[in-house]
């Protein structure tokens, strides 16, 4: 066999082998008590936008795309989800302190305004997660309303 053939053979063995290393799935199914929708008024249309554009990385339930089953795609995805959840988890919102809730809402608004979220690398594949102008206005006004109501309570 030629060198190239052997190389390709080994490479394909490796690729097949890594398919068996599947990261654990981020899927919880039930709505938890700590969920943001149980804490604040979240209108249905806002909820829908949050679900499609944010929840894949910022909740306990990821809607997995096809490439999650192909390694190393799934690993890459898992690391993003881990980071995303550490930063902000809508399903754990109640567990944040009052101040942290305020800060999280502030950061949500600024990331949407600056266009840093959803991640461009994510919307490249997930076209429907891209926020339209209307989506942005909707989310921003919801965040503002929620923040104002929190300020009144304090």
């Amino acid at each position, binding site marked *: 066999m030629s*060198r190239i053939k*052997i*190389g390709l053979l*080994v*490479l394909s*063995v*490796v690729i097949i*082998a*890594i398919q068996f*290393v599947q990261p654990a799935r981020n899927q919880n199914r039930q709505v938890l008590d700590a969920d943001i929708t149980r804490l604040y008024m979240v209108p249905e249309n806002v909820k829908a936008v949050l679900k499609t554009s944010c929840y894949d990385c910022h909740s306990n339930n990821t809607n997995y795309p096809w490439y999650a089953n192909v390694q190393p795609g799934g690993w890459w995805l898992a690391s993003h989800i881990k980071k995303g959840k550490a930063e902000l988890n809508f399903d754990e919102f109640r567990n944040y*302190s*009052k*101040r*942290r809730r*305020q*800060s999280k809402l*502030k*950061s949500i608004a*600024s990331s949407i305004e600056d266009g840093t979220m959803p991640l461009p690398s994510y919307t490249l594949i997930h076209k429907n997660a891209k926020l339209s102008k209307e989506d942005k206005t909707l989310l921003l006004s919801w965040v503002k309303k929620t923040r104002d109501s929190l300020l009144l309570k304090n």
Partner: protein
Amino acid sequence: MKTLIFSIVLSTMFFAACNNGTPKNQTADNTTPATAEGPKTKGGSIETGSSIKDLLNSYLKIKNALTKDNDKDAADGGNEMVKTFDSFDKASLTAEQAKVYNDIVDDAKEHAEHIGANAGNIEHQREHFETLSQETYELVKVVGAGQKLYVDHCPKYNKNKGANWLSETKDIENPYLGKSMPACGTVKEELN
């Protein structure tokens, strides 16, 4: 033959790398209790943990770096502040002071972390600095600064929404606008 050996080496390396994932985490877990014990013994015998003065020093380091548009020094200050929070001597606080401290600590620490992690993105550091300033102010207000501090206000920051900061000097040096508008702002309050 060489290629074959090379490929085998490569694939074993690859698997070794994969397998390392879990043991590595385990060693990390093992070291955590060890480091957790560290400050305890330190706090008991040699020195008490960090104080409000240490917190303020790291805060002012961030502030001064931002006035000079220096994102790297601001990040250093942020990381320092995280450490200071971690080793903070809560026992020295009264019940009322502890209440405010507990109220702000997790959020303030997170802001400091973000400032530490965002060298290269000074605007993001400033966003976090804004809330961090507010929280530091509230803490100083009940705990006392132990030094003269000025509460300054910049009306222009964030599309004229304005923001406050704490300074050790009476002269205005704006951390939000940096070198582009160093003297923008006024002293709102003086703390002793």
